[in-house]
């Protein structure tokens, strides 16, 4: 199965904000943030349809999210996971003595994982931490 390597960034989206305020335990929050936005070119390289579940892996962790077409693109070479537990499962935690983890610019590998579910926020954090 092909896999691609991309540079991951994260941040706010309006859907992330709205669903967060409506309750992070709700499925709408997972649907807004448990995604990775990729360019059409990346889908071609990955050999995957839009809305396929993928596993995103960095040297710091691994998480399953749904791959969707970039909504604010194109952004060649970049993958976008909205801020939240899914992005934070793989981001670079190094602060380099600034206190600030390196949330933007984590090299990640993306591979198709259509049989694996995208967990909701509470299930994901429970699985990762408890």
């Amino acid at each position, binding site marked *: 199965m092909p896999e691609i390597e991309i*540079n991951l960034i994260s941040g706010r989206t309006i859907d992330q*904000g709205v669903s967060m305020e409506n309750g992070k335990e709700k499925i709408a929050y997972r649907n807004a943030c448990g995604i990775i936005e990729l360019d059409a070119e990346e889908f071609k390289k990955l050999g995957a349809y839009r809305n396929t579940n993928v596993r995103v892996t960095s040297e*710091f*962790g691994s998480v399953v999210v749904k791959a969707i077409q970039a909504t604010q693109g194109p952004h060649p*070479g970049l993958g976008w996971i909205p801020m939240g537990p899914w992005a934070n499962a793989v981001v670079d935690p190094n602060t380099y003595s600034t*206190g600030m983890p390196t949330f933007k610019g984590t090299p990640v590998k993306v591979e198709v994982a259509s049989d694996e579910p995208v967990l909701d926020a509470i299930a994901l954090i429970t699985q990762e931490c408890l």
Partner: protein
Amino acid sequence: MSRSWMRLRSLRRSAYRQVGNLAKIVTDVVCPFCGTLCDDLEVALDDSGEKILEVYNACAIGAAKFLHSQAEDRLTRPQMKQEDGSWKEVTYDEAVEYTAQMLIDAKKPLMYGWSSTSCSAQSVGSELGEVVGACMDNTATVCHGSSLIAVQDVGIPSATLGEIANRADRVVFWGCNPAHAHPRHMSRYSIFPRGFFTGKGSKSRKMVVVDPRRTDTAKMADIHLQLEQGHDYELLSAIRVAIRGEKLPKTVAGIPAETIYEVAETLKSGRFAVIFFGMGVTQSLGKNHNIDIAIAVTRDLNDYTKAAIIPMRGHYNVTGSGQVWGWQFGFPFCLDLSRGFARYNPGDSSSNDLLIRDEVDAAFVLGSDPGAHFPVGSVRKIAQMPSVCIDPHITPTSAVSKLHVPVAFVGVEVGGCAYRMDNVPIETRKVVEPPEGMLTDEEFLTMVLKRVKEMKGAA
């Protein structure tokens, strides 16, 4: 002026008015979501004045915050996690006892958050942190902490958003996406308002967006610099070169030299330029150095025109948290009070570094959600130690904490001071009563402080 118009105006001016026999409208409500702190919301209440029916003028996120406060599945009493992982309802008194005991027992507790609450609650929290010798940090640590470090390094030529609305004709959004993160920023302050010297609104402004993605903000821009991610320092440096009219290489950070010269000329030719910047620069490699040089660009521009730079602060009162700690301890975040006086050393006294290095042994979280917004390695550490989460919502932080204390929503169910992103203090407004018997942040903190002092024999 017609009589009916005058009547309408006086109606709008009254903070609390009746519409027919159905709804009451609370006017001039301040939105407790982002650092834009919009103060023109109107909230429709039902006849009893207890239920929010509709929120006017707010963005989608602000409206969601007001409406979700009334959700039927909202928690109204503290919950303690049991051995088997289930939750048991406890009283506020029991929650105070657990929290006070946890803070007393810990050698070095982390008290994190403080950004979604009022300045008066932050102030009580500071006293509590001082008494128990805590490490205290706010959400700037994962947001604009880099900016605060840069400001301490090189200062900041800044302005208020009112000045921007009235004067700025060159507006740069660098590494920020207000269309999504500060949805009313452009309409209230930066792009669309018709100000005193900006009478044609957006037509009198040039808008430059710097972002590696073609964001919804970038799509509105006159010039979009779609730079290579993480190369902000180089591009800012190139703009300084271009402002001075010196020679540039063919491309910098993926941007052609002629475009960089065009941006430099656009900024220099304005009467008032402003740079708004966000997580694109503070969270990418370079961090505080990216902000250093963005401030240097602003300083350079002041040789040619008037220029200012403003961070796009996230939580509605993260700025206030920095202000309160600034006047109480001298530092805006990353406070280590464990030695009995305030130390400040980001990288050492910052939450993520403390957690990853196992240097704190209890976690107290209020007004933030590190469970969702810290790298998972840090959250894992919180899950392993005694922990209290004070938050109206169920969050990933509450899910991994031992005790979850729901409280009233500041800005919805209790008023209190908050600071806008440009450091302007605004008093938020109480719109409805909290559910019966529910405490506010400040009340809970005051009870914990009293109990801690009793336990230490200092009461």
